[in-house]
């Protein structure tokens, strides 16, 4: 039981990282990134390949995942500078599918649909059964650092510019803000976080395959962020953990219902998850922890003669 809880907590942490990444770009700058699974995959593959085929240390893999995710993010933003909203969403969704198809078909590099197995975990052999708690600590530490970082951005003048761009990019431009630079930087940072999450995921599971990076995971994270509270890092984080809790507890709830077949139980589980998510969005449209926009600071000269 304990191992299972540790496992779920770790998975929740990884989903939390993805949620923070999405919240930064979607909640912050208002750019709909449906390609989250693609950046997640880029990071996972970069780190897995460097540490298995390249025999590099795991930390190098994680660093590469950050860089690879960030670069992929830059490429996507710079090639979509004129797209907004739905159109950007379509292109990013396409990007994720391209990544998945490349992973499935470029067998010489990615081992195709066989996937990459035997990805090393940090000190896995030495730790034995203690691997799960140690990895949870690593994930939580990374999550903590990223959380502090994005919250810092959220509350800084930089975050205010992002929100201005979200509300009306033209106005921000008129106010003299370099909108494109802000968008590109934020998108790259968000993609880098998703890439890092992918690397942490790969070394935790020890196996990755193209099937892992279907758009479903992007949808899950969108639900987590929307349910938790768009535009607020803490909301995204809470949303991710609640989503994981919901996904897993549904399993135990449907087991309590007697005299139904396994298929009905599986269908009921999906139904239950959907109903809860609909209820959350219906009853709390801004999410469980809605965005709080701090009042603009008063000019310091006020009140002085």
């Amino acid at each position: 039981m304990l191992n299972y809880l540790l496992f779920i907590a770790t998975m929740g942490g990884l989903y939390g990282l993805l949620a923070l990444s999405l919240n930064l770009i979607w909640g912050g700058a208002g750019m709909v990134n449906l390609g989250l699974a693609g950046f997640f995959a880029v990071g996972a593959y970069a780190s897995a390949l460097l540490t298995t085929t390249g025999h590099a240390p795991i930390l190098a893999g994680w660093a590469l995942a950050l860089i690879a995710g960030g670069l992929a993010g830059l490429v996507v933003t710079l090639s979509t500078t004129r797209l907004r909203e739905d159109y950007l969403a379509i292109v990013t969704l396409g990007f994720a599918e391209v990544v998945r198809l490349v992973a499935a078909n470029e067998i010489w590099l990615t081992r195709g649909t066989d996937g990459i197995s035997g990805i090393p975990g940090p000190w896995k052999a030495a730790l034995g059964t203690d691997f799960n708690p140690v990895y949870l600590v690593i994930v939580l530490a990374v999550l903590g650092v990223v959380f502090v970082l994005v919250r810092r951005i959220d509350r800084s003048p930089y975050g205010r510019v992002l929100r201005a761009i979200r509300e009306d990019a033209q106005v921000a431009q008129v106010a003299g803000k370099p909108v494109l630079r802000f968008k590109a930087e934020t998108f790259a940072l968000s993609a880098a976080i998703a890439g890092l999450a992918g690397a942490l995921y790969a070394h935790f599971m020890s196996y990755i395959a193209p099937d892992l990076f279907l758009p479903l995971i992007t949808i899950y994270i969108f639900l987590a962020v929307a349910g938790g509270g768009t535009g607020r890092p803490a909301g995204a984080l809470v949303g991710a953990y609640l989503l994981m809790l919901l996904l897993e507890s549904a399993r135990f709830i449907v087991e309590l219902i007697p005299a139904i077949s396994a298929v009905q139980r599986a269908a009921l589980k999906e139904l239950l998850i959907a109903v809860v998510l609909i209820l959350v969005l219906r009853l709390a449209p801004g999410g469980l922890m809605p965005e709080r926009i701090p009042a603009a600071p008063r000019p310091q000269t006020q009140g002085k003669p």
Partner: protein
Amino acid sequence: MTRIAFGRRAALLTGAAAFAAPAVLRAQSDPIKIATLTPLTGAGGPYGPVMAKVAASVVEEVNGAGGVLGRKVQLLSEDDQTNPDAGVRAARKLIDVDKVAAIIGTWASSVTTAVAPLCWESKTFLCTVSGADSITQLPHQGFLIRTQPNSTLQVARSGEFMLSLGARKIYTMIPQTPFTQATIDLMGKLVSKAGGTHQGLVYDDKKTTYRTEVDQVLRTNPDMIFAAGYTTDTVVLLKDIYRAGYKGKIIGFGYSINQKLIDQIGQPEVVEGVYTYSPSPAEGSTAFERVKKATGLANPDPYTCQVYDHANLVLLAMAEAKAATGVAIKDNIRKVAQGGGTTVDNAVDGLKAIAAGQKVDYTGASGPCDFDDKGDIIDCKFRYEQIKGGKITLVKVA
């Protein structure tokens, strides 16, 4: 203050003891837990539900006859959603919370590869129907067997059959899977050895039409098409091949071209004359008849037959070992699966024979079920069939 603290701690301890004590007493009569992990939703959705159902029927029969080692058997069924991520979460729950001794029926190769390390690390036995060659090459320490012949064997047999039908210009149409490249290479070797020509085309299995792919293939005028996909994509593919006016022969795997596919296409002329083949039980096998009865299907697919065998083998191995753990199954499964002795085709008869001190040799619905050291099946017959007038008719078993 300290006294109160002590009181609390003592109360806690007593409470914990009260919970723990019956657990210890109960251990002897606790049910033995095994689990199916099949795709109940997602791409494998057409296969998984009946797989779970047939495993439940085996467990029900065994419980009706008194269980295993004097304990009832409890079957849990989780959904892997045909997705490795969901599969791993479900497997973790089965292993850590339910503490099952064995997981049976993993279907997609990617799910099996993701779940396998969890199983061998926690000494849980895993039986799979995935065909990718790489699966039995994992460092599984004996905690894995598979009843599906690996793809090399399957493809070699189908190639030989195509050549025996007189085909010389063969085109393989296959989605991207772990065995795609191996299939194309192997077919190429087989066909060119027989003096024919072979070409392969890899398609994306999530497309809604294959007209361009079909046009590309028909341009070379093949006399046989090997449609090596799964049911969902093959339905679309066969329709497009028919529309393009192709007159040659078509063959595909039994797990894809089956009654379900005929029903889904709904036009008998589209599938008229199409060949299908699958691993088969030896002729006169009674286990296959039992699977038909348990599922109510006239033509249960190979995966269902294999899961029937998984459930029986796992239960027999526990009885042979007189212990209900993954390690016990690992050490004893080959003793009940092969090596001569009383031939049995179901767990109830086998359990009686083991109780009477006999050596049993299980012969199942999917074949003789004999395994080599890596966990692959050793020998396997194939059943070749052809669709005539919307019905699947037997050509030969060889």
